[in-house]
């Protein structure tokens, strides 16, 4: 099953660089064949929100939702089931200072 792993955390959280470095995690999950791809994202200060309402294109600066925790990166996982995906997510360094969300792909 494929899952989108959303890595969220407060952008102002202070974490030692070595504690936030996902490289060992990426290497492990790539080696196990559980991670298809993923990337860190630029902060929400450079994000752009797009909506179409009544045929009108609305573009605005910044994220749609005003929440403290923002998406800082994502990974696409291919796991046997939710338990495996939870295990993978729990090993991500951001699990210790942020929040990880697992969203299954909508496969018919």
């Amino acid at each position, binding site marked *: *099953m494929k*899952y989108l792993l959303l890595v969220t955390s407060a952008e102002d959280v202070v974490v030692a660089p070595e504690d936030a470095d996902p490289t060992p995690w990426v290497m492990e999950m790539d080696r196990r064949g559980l991670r298809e791809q993923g990337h860190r994202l630029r902060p929400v200060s450079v994000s752009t929100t797009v909506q179409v309402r009544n045929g009108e294109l609305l573009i605005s600066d910044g994220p749609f939702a005003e929440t403290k925790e923002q998406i800082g990166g994502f990974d696409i996982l291919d*796991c*046997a*089931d*939710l*338990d495996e*995906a*939870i295990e993978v997510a729990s090993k991500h360094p951001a699990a210790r200072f942020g929040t990880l969300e*697992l969203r*299954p792909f909508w496969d018919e």
Partner: protein
Amino acid sequence: MLATLIGFTRDWDLAEECVQDAFERALQRWPDEGIPRNPGAWLTTTARNRALDRMRRSSVEVVKVREAATMAQPGDPEVDESAIADDRLRLIFTCCHPALALEARVALTLRTVAGLTTEEIARAFLTPSSTMGQRLFRAKRKIRDAGIPYRVPPAELLPERTSGVLGVLYLLFNEGYAASSGDGLLRPDLCAEAIRLGRILAELMPGQDEVRGVLALMLLQDARRAARTDEGGVLVTLEQQDRTLWDQDQIAEGAGFLAQAPHGPYQLQAAIAACHDSAAQAWDTDWPRIASLYTQLATLTPTPFVALNHAVAVAMADGPAVGLPLVDAIDVSGALAGYHLLPATQADLLRRLGRRADAAAAYERAFALAPTEAERLFLRRRIVEMTGAAPPPI
């Protein structure tokens, strides 16, 4: 309408059949009963209900049919009994998966493992049947769509997941035991269901002390049920219960599941319940042992509830003057704000210390917070005892 049903069932065949059923039913009923105000909505609802029914039935039937098969032919070599046990255990662990909301775990366990109907579960939790149906449906959809595995967890996850399952069982039991709101009439017996599930689990997972512990705890607490309220439905404290009403067979059975030296949280709580159950009279209770078991329990589960019970046990073992400061400390911490048994305990200790005015004030605070009629009646009686005043209106 079909699209709605497909969206609902995510199953084309089932959706089509249910829509057809709804039209057939309309043809039977509308000529006699008249056309409903909103025929489209009537048809959709009827088809949805039919689909819900069918989906629920299919999930329980597999287990039930196999169960019946084993009972009918116990010696039949064709029936692999361990496979049936595995199926059951898989079902329990899947229903209690931590990725499901707690209330969904409870409902799903009752529905698929215990085989209660949605209406019965709804009544047990004082929830509209449609809400409960939705809750169950959503839980099943999450199992399927989120990829929750249908299996007994592997060894590294087993202890954690087992304690999750035990948590669901005990919550179920407590829901029945406390009948947490309203009167207990007409509610299915959740205690009996929880005990039944506990027996099944203890059989499926032999040698697991905590599984036996939760079963022991439920049996030992439930054994006192007949004495917990008087004829008028008023709560009777443990101290004042008619102990001849306690179910001695059940106490013996529960005690049989206790470990020699209790260690896990359920074993410890069961050992405490056994201390109460084995006292022929309230004054025979081994309070120093209970206080020491609570001390052990507090190191494993340092919750304010355990702290409160520990304080009560200390008050019984060493006197109310020693226990009261422990209760007051919990009060000051604010950890149990809004919990009626905190002021009720303070009131009780103050009463024993002869501080009637302080006791009455604390009983008043407990009265304002008490969730059930039985408890309010009991507290009202205490207020009258302390003040001699007319009872507050209910």
